[in-house]
């Protein structure tokens, strides 16, 4: 049932899909309603075929700025085509006609892909990412490309070359990152679904900070082809949604073996929807000793403890588990990810794509192009990675970190012998203020402390809302807190099942509230 007074933008993807299938509403109407919502809340000028967000210095204080580019006409055309085929009796997929926002790190033929970087400003990719192909095959309508930390490096979306994205719950705070635009779009009701990418927490942490469900699937189950690479052994695309079921449905669409991605695996998790509603009675839920305590805000800790009581009341067995090497996860990550970044980003050399700064010799041209094209955080990580991989340092840094990675994966395997799924807070803090952590790289990196271990082990992990808590710097505030659920490799189904049971019990309303929440009726 559609609640009284809730317009099309307030519906979950499943609710909207049901209305579309019943022909109570057309895909074109759904797309237009979301384009109107974007125009009202995001800034930018919705004229013409595509519209680009305004320059960073022209962004208003009440704008979310989730999108870098809205491909309005292409979305309308796609919706019209779906509507025609539905009327003609063609069998369509379960999410056909539902709009979606796509992170600007995945290519979409004919529209610019910037990765939030000046380096790629103006680049139009000649092919669709496999994820984009699968979305189109499912007749999901892409509304546009969302803002992100440059090349997915960051935890606040403040590293974008095209301005900050703001948190719909409090427009003076960050939405998390690096997939902050995809998170903010769904939280601001600009789209019921979006795609982000997660290397060390870049889906889960923004989901936590914006009151959404965001999942990193088992590594290798979603193709990386057309996902501009940051750290190839960790990067994985996944869904954002306002409900657990919506996220499971979207993940189902994008997970498929891809012969064009050499790290794609042929295995699939069991059906994500079949046992979604089975509950947690008798399920063993492991609390990770190392992923709580010092460094976590009191409001986050308290909300997490209440979440454990809720799981217990639902019949789950709460057990304590230890991941002894988890404290080394973040240091290992900040060697592995920059090392792979320095190698991957070598391709931006001013020769085959992207921008060029002219210079007399090829080497000077490469160096000048990269100096002008990359922002400070990307330069820092390239430098760390280049140093860590350079002669004499490889064994102590990248190799040692890769061994720690093995030990963390072993810790998880041992923990999953006594627990079916593991839980922790997703992020040590609620959404923090714009510009409060940009001066201290390590303070920013600590956002990933609870999400990085699952990334290193490749296991599936999601964040879902656990409730609201006060920010330490704003007495009386109420901001979303994320609960992380982790499952063994290829048991994404179990992760969703535990999350669904918790979600039904909590009855969290994913509609931003508060004095600085995004304006306008849903």
């Amino acid at each position, binding site marked *: 049932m559609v609640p009284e007074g809730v317009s099309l933008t307030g519906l979950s993807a499943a609710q909207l899909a049901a209305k579309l299938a019943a022909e109570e509403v057309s895909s074109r109407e759904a797309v237009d309603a979301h384009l109107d919502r974007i125009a009202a809340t995001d800034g930018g000028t919705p004229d013409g075929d595509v519209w680009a967000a305004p320059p960073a210095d022209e962004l208003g204080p009440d704008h979310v700025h989730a999108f870098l580019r809205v491909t309005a006409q292409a979305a309308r055309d796609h919706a019209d085509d779906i509507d025609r085929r539905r009327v003609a009796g063609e069998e369509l997929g379960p999410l056909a006609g539902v709009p979606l926002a796509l992170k600007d790190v995945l290519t979409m033929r004919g529209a610019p892909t910037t990765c939030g970087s000046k380096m790629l400003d103006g680049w139009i990719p*000649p092919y669709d990412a496999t994820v984009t192909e699968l979305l189109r095959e499912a007749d999901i309508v892409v509304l546009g490309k969302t803002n992100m930390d440059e090349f997915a490096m960051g935890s606040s979306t403040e590293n974008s070359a095209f301005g900050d994205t703001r948190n719909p719950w409090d427009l003076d705070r960050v939405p998390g990152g690096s997939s902050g635009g995809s998170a903010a779009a769904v939280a601001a009701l600009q789209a019921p679904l979006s795609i982000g990418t997660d290397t060390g927490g870049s889906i889960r942490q923004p989901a936590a900070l914006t009151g959404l469900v965001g999942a990193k699937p088992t590594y290798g189950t979603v193709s990386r082809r057309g996902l501009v690479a940051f750290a190839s052994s960790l990067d994985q695309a996944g869904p954002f949604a306002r409900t657990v079921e919506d996220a499971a449905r979207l993940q189902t669409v994008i997970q498929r073996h891809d012969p064009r991605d050499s790290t794609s695996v042929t295995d699939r998790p069991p059906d994500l929807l079949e046992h979604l509603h089975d509950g947690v009675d008798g399920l063993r839920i492991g609390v990770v000793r190392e992923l709580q305590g010092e460094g976590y805000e009191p409001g986050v800790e308290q909300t997490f403890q209440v979440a454990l009581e809720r799981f217990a009341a639902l019949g789950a067995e709460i057990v304590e588990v230890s991941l002894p090497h988890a404290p*080394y996860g973040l240091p290992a990550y900040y*060697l592995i990810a920059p090392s792979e970044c320095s190698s991957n980003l070598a391709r931006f050399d*001013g020769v085959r794509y992207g921008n060029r700064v002219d210079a007399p010799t090829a080497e000077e041209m490469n160096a000048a192009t990269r100096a002008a094209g990359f922002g400070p955080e990307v330069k820092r990580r390239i430098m760390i990675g280049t*140093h860590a991989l350079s002669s004499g340092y490889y064994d102590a840094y990248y190799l040692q970190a890769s061994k*720690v990675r093995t030990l963390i994966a072993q810790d998880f395997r041992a923990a999953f012998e006594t627990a079916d799924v593991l839980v922790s807070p997703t992020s040590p803090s609620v959404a923090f203020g714009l510009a409060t952590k940009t001066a201290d790289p390590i303070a920013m990196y600590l956002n990933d402390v609870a999400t990085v271990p699952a990334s290193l082990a490749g296991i599936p992990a999601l964040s879902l809302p656990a409730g609201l808590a006060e920010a330490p710097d704003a007495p009386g505030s109420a901001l979303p807190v994320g609960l992380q659920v982790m499952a063994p*490799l290829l048991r994404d189904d179990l992760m969703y099942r535990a999350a669904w049971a918790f979600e039904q019990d909590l009855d969290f309303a994913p509609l931003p509230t508060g004095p600085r929440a995004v304006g306008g009726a849903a």
Partner: protein
Amino acid sequence: MSLSADEVRHVARLARLALSDDEVTDLAPQLSGILGYAEQVGEVAAEDVTPTVHPFAPQDVTRPDDPRPSLPREDILASAPEVEQDRFAVPRIVAEEG
């Protein structure tokens, strides 16, 4: 470890990044701080541990060796900053002979 300004310039050369003097000044303490933090991995005894680069054991994936079209050349060259005779064009790589 602590990186000196000269070491930062050396790494920047390896990374093909033309850093300004101000950037070098800023980066030296930042990189030293990050590396100091990351060096905690050295506390773990891991001599006999096999490193992990992919969470799954390596799989051999094969496909039929059927010829398929690649992307059209003009689509690829359209992205390039400079093209000459259907090729990517770059500034001089080898110095002129004296």
